[in-house]
């Protein structure tokens, strides 16, 4: 089986956020929930100051604390054969142990019915403007007018209330040989997905030619998301 990983080239990354919006489109995630996200930091004092941006996502750790703590049998949060950390909405009991165990804060919980915005049925100008619900119904979307049905292939298209959700490394796309959507929409060509066990894969080549680091290496989680080079050229 492949041993999937992602490599993010911070030198090429422009901090634009396209991966974050792309992920929201691909996975129909609610407002405030991000499977792909970023952290940023401003260090130093004027004029010697730097702004740094690091894209983040589920690290699909080899030693995944979220899987370890999942109390359900079989586990709702589980490691797939290809190395991905995946989640079953059906088996999830919403205990949120995984969310607490994740050192990276990339697991989210649906405390309320998702997409409250789009379920609203009030209009600002009666008869003159629409309601969110009306738009989605009119155009044939599911809750969201721009709902992406592709997501349903391997996960709930929209995850219900009282369960967690997280990045699946676009398992529905990569199973069909298509790149993850965050990578697809990255205008800066800074993200690479592939098989670590294949020495010809782009990720293997990049990790051979550049030094890399992973987030919170000291926790022993063995993330499968690697970062190469620096965001700031100066």
């Amino acid at each position, binding site marked *: 089986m492949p041993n999937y990983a992602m490599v993010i080239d911070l030198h090429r990354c422009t901090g634009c956020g396209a991966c974050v919006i792309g992920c929201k489109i691909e996975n129909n995630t609610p407002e405030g929930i991000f499977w792909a996200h970023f952290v940023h930091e401003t260090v130093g004092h004027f004029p010697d100051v730097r702004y740094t941006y690091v894209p983040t996502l589920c690290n699909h750790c080899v030693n995944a604390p979220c899987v370890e703590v999942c109390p359900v049998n079989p586990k709702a949060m589980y490691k797939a054969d290809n190395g991905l950390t995946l989640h079953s909405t059906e088996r999830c009991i919403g205990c949120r142990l995984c969310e607490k165990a994740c050192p990276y804060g990339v697991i989210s919980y649906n405390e309320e019915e998702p997409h409250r915005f789009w379920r609203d049925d009030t209009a600002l100008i009666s*008869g003159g403007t629409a309601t969110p619900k009306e738009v989605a119904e009119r*155009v044939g979307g599911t809750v969201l007018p721009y709902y992406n049905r592709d997501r349903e292939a391997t996960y709930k298209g929209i995850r219900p209330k009282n369960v967690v959700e997280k990045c699946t490394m676009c398992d529905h796309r990569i199973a069909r040989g298509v790149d993850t959507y965050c990578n697809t929409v990255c205008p800066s060509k800074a993200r690479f997905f592939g098989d670590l*066990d294949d020495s010809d894969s782009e990720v293997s080549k990049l990790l051979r030619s550049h030094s890399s680091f992973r987030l919170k290496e000291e926790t022993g989680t063995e993330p499968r998301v690697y970062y190469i080079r620096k965001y700031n050229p100066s």
Partner: protein
Amino acid sequence: MSLQEILGSKIKRRTFLKIAGATGALAMVSAGCGQKRAEEEPPPAPQYSLEEGTWLPTGCEGCTSWCAKEVLVKDGRAVKIRPNALSKVHGDSGCPREHLGLQQVYDPDRIKVPMKRTNPKKGRYEDPGFVPISWDEAMGIFADKLIELQKNAEPHKFMVMRGRYTQNNQVLYDRFPKIMGSPNNISHSSICAEAEKFGPYYTEGYWNYRDYDLDNTKMVVLWGVDPISSNRQVSYYLKAWGDLLERAYVVTIDPRLSASASKSHAWLPVKPGEDGALALAMAHVILTEGLWSREFAGDFKDGKNRFVAGKTVKEEDFEETYTFGLVKWWNLEVKDRTPQWAAEKTGISAEKIINVAKRLGELGTHAIVWQGGGPNMQVRGGYSSMAIQALNGLVGSVDNVGGSIRGASVPSGNVPAPDDFMNELAKDGVRKQKIDQRGYKEFPALNAGRSGGGVVTNRVADAILAEDPYDIKVAFGYWNNFNFSCPEASRWDEAMAKIPFFVHAVTHASEMSIFADIVLPSTHHMFEQWGYMSQKGNTYTHAWLNQPVIDPVWDCKDPETEMVWLLAQKLAERGFTNLKDFCDAVKDPESGASAANEKEFALFCTKVRTRPMWDPAEYKAGDKFSGWEDFKTKGVWNSGEYPFKKLWGNFGTATKQFEFYSETLKNALTAHAEKHKTTVDDILATCKYQARGEKAFIPHYEEPYIWGNESEYPLVMVDHKSRFNREGRSANAPWYYDLKDADPGDEKWDDVARINPRDAALLGVRNGDRIRLVSPVGSLVCTAKLWEGTPPGTVGKTFGQGHWAYGRVAAKDFKKREARGGNNNDVLPADYERLSGSTAFYAVTRVRVEKA
């Protein structure tokens, strides 16, 4: 979670950087990726398909990058957006903004049907009492008002206002007002960037934005421009940036730590308004160090450099090649502009100025000095624009490989000229003074060398209120929202309340719509209508079609063509047939037929306008197509390769040379002064400039003109655009706020004013405090953010929020007219760079900070 937290307590920042800079051994061990894995049969692909539907070509006007796009449409529903990879400008690279289009087209607060006002009282807090009406009724009412102007022989009291547009605007924006007899087609251009074009025009004769040959450059100086975030060709720059940083030295000059500054090798935080000083000092260094381009600018006849600080040079000792007036410029200005002098003005040390200037001179012809609106959309910014562009002239990178270049012309056709459809009243009406006071003594607006040649958009509000040159009785605006987007926005509230009849064609009920008598629901340019747009980048120019890839979500129509056709029918019913005659004269280039309905009219106009691109019989340049269907299917035309150095010796200036002493500007200013029977000195004084005499015609230093005194208003306001703005039209998209902190220094779901912690300590302001920014003309309320990327003495704030209408997300309370965040235009005064007509957004006002 902070970066520090997520990186882990054991990995301090220095370690992180060290690790990132270490050799590859570490990665190989941890990744275990050294072995070619054994060949295995891949598992069978699961039986479902992805991205079902059809990718249909169109384009995006979410910013002025104007990129060719494709939309994935399934069962009539738009699901995804991607770049149209056939474009040679951006290829397969998109941007974050394109995706926001989905939340725009499906925005619940879009207007569904035409509406009319039932409350005659107009004001921000008046409920217009909008009620739905039919298109028939809406156009009938509009036609009645236009007929009334005809009957009263005052057709010039009609005004068309344009915000964003497609190139089909020729119908609505040009032919329509002319046929109706009005001179008043008012664009938004001078709140966009006219001053940025001033320098390039009065040095090299180009009233336009430039393109840049990034692939071949060795140095880029970004000057008040943020190419990986906003303004032109962002998609291309997002892709090109990583490679550029490896190949070239990139410097950002900006009074804020911008997205591009964070991805540059050096950041020079120039004091607001002192850009001219910095540019002139760089010119001084290049000349005194002997680093100018001999090939482009020439040399001393004996080859000995006589440019010595403070010393004049004999003009006859120097022989220029493709430039004009270099020695005059040196003698009049540059000889005294030492880096030491500039250091005091700019806050940038002399050493840094010298380093950057020397590098620029040494890399010479393969170096780009790239200005945005920042250094020139200032009250005295016109000459800074010239000084900055003059640096490209000095190093010879103008029109050169790896330098500052231009776009190609796009082969376009025209709809029939208006003349045959204009009655005597109309012919007289169009000769009247335009409402924006362009060409008045205090508004030279010297677009392309002509007095009153350019628009003074923001002046219109004052002109309407003062009824100078006359009153406006009927107005039509589309895709514009001047009540939000123009500085001192409240004047527009008064002006629009004064106009007796106003029709607004827009996607959303915006601040301006609140003053409308009729609101017409507009199609979304990217998804629901025809049109075309062109833009340059990556040394190419492309032109793409806007196409109706989905049916309009609601009963929306395209303002530029469909609304004109519908109105023409109503006018004809009332006996005024001229506009209908014009519409009928627009023939489908393929069938020769006139349009039978508004949809056909939109299609025929588009085919006429783009015909030289798609019709093999009219082929002129660039990509070839077999016909309309072929063009429609591909969606984008590309120019041929850029011909470098073709302009050398043939610039569009009075002398045909690159002018350091601008005979072109001398002609323009002299003509404007003569028109007003006065002197050029008087014109400069009237336009708030300090220079007198010969300095009027050269790039020279002007002290910044900033509203408010330092004791009362201690901080200079630094306004700039968000990378998610879509020109201010995405403020009702939830994703805009979800991602807001990807604008460096900003916060999610908040609108912050960024203050340096040192200033904040003096002011007693803490992070997260609700504060009021107060300028001499107004105030806004937002949240304080202490941020080191803001230079002391300034306050940085992103433009985009502060809507009190526009929708349920953009406004905190749409019905009560409560804004979410604060609109920068509430503190910016309505002032101008008057020589270009441009509104001043930068270094234009000081503010003080109060607790809200």
